[in-house]
């Protein structure tokens, strides 16, 4: 399956995070890599989006968007921080 990158998370994450997802910094809970989410590998559509660490491939973020609701899991991130303006 071919992957995209974290740029595609911007729409699905809008309103869930309160800031832009693609410039947000996060640390991988598994390997400690700190990355901008725009740099993550994202496996997408049609069910939702799975963002994986660019270094160790662990799952960082999952977003599932359906007609009625959106669900966000950030369990693979130690922390997430708003990016520089």
């Amino acid at each position, binding site marked *: 399956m*071919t*992957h*995209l*990158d*974290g*740029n*595609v998370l*911007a*729409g*699905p994450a*809008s*309103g*869930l995070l*309160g800031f*832009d997802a*693609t*410039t947000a910094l996060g640390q991988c809970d598994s390997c400690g890599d700190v990355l*901008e*989410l*725009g*740099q993550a590998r994202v496996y*997408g*559509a*049609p069910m939702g989006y799975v963002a994986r660490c660019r270094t160790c491939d662990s799952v960082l973020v999952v977003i599932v*968007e359906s*007609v009625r609701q*959106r669900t966000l899991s950030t369990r693979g991130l130690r922390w997430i921080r708003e*990016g520089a303006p």
Partner: protein
Amino acid sequence: MNRSSGGWLTGTLVNAVPLTDSARSLTFRVPGWPGNDAGQHVDIRLTAPDGYQAVRSYSIATAGEGEAIELAVERLPDGEVSPFLVDELEIGDAVELRGPLGRWFVWRPEQTGPVQLVAGGSGVVPLVAMARVHTRAEALSAMQLLYSLRGPDDALYREELSAEDSKTTWHYTRIAPPGWPRMPGRLTAQDLVREALPYEDGVLTYICGPTGFVEAVAAAMIEIGHAADSIRTERFGGI
């Protein structure tokens, strides 16, 4: 636009121009659009009569103020959304739009360092927006585009990118024009050494194209000395 709502706006198609046999430029008027930066994208949502929805991301070819945005969409053979946008959507038709989206794959005129743009196929669209803003701002920093495509007939915005003041280098992977100095083939590290700005200048590189293209070019850029953090990528693909 209320950025925190993740809300959908309505865009009405006001202009459509074929760019190639398989791609078309679509300009939407979007009341409430707050303007956008070069490189940002928009999500388009289509809803079928039975309620089935499909959402796809498309790069914006324009940037700046105003409620009109231009997209350039290429028809993917097995696509669910792109054939509709390229072949079916008519002037006056409306779609749902969400955006402007993404702040990572963005170039702003305040950035003063040299910039190398590398496009694969229809990945040129957000890079066209950057080149347009660069030209309009009369920016003094260097910006040049290396555009890889199958053959001359596949070029989006050929005329605009061929203009005298446009710094575009063309690269052909399958069919080259007669007398073209390089045999058609994939973009290699040697091509990048010859055609791209050198890393010694502190260049920031933006690469956009299909996933395989982006991976190969990013790896080659690193191979010839560019730092990973000086490379921004946007992959596209899917159905």
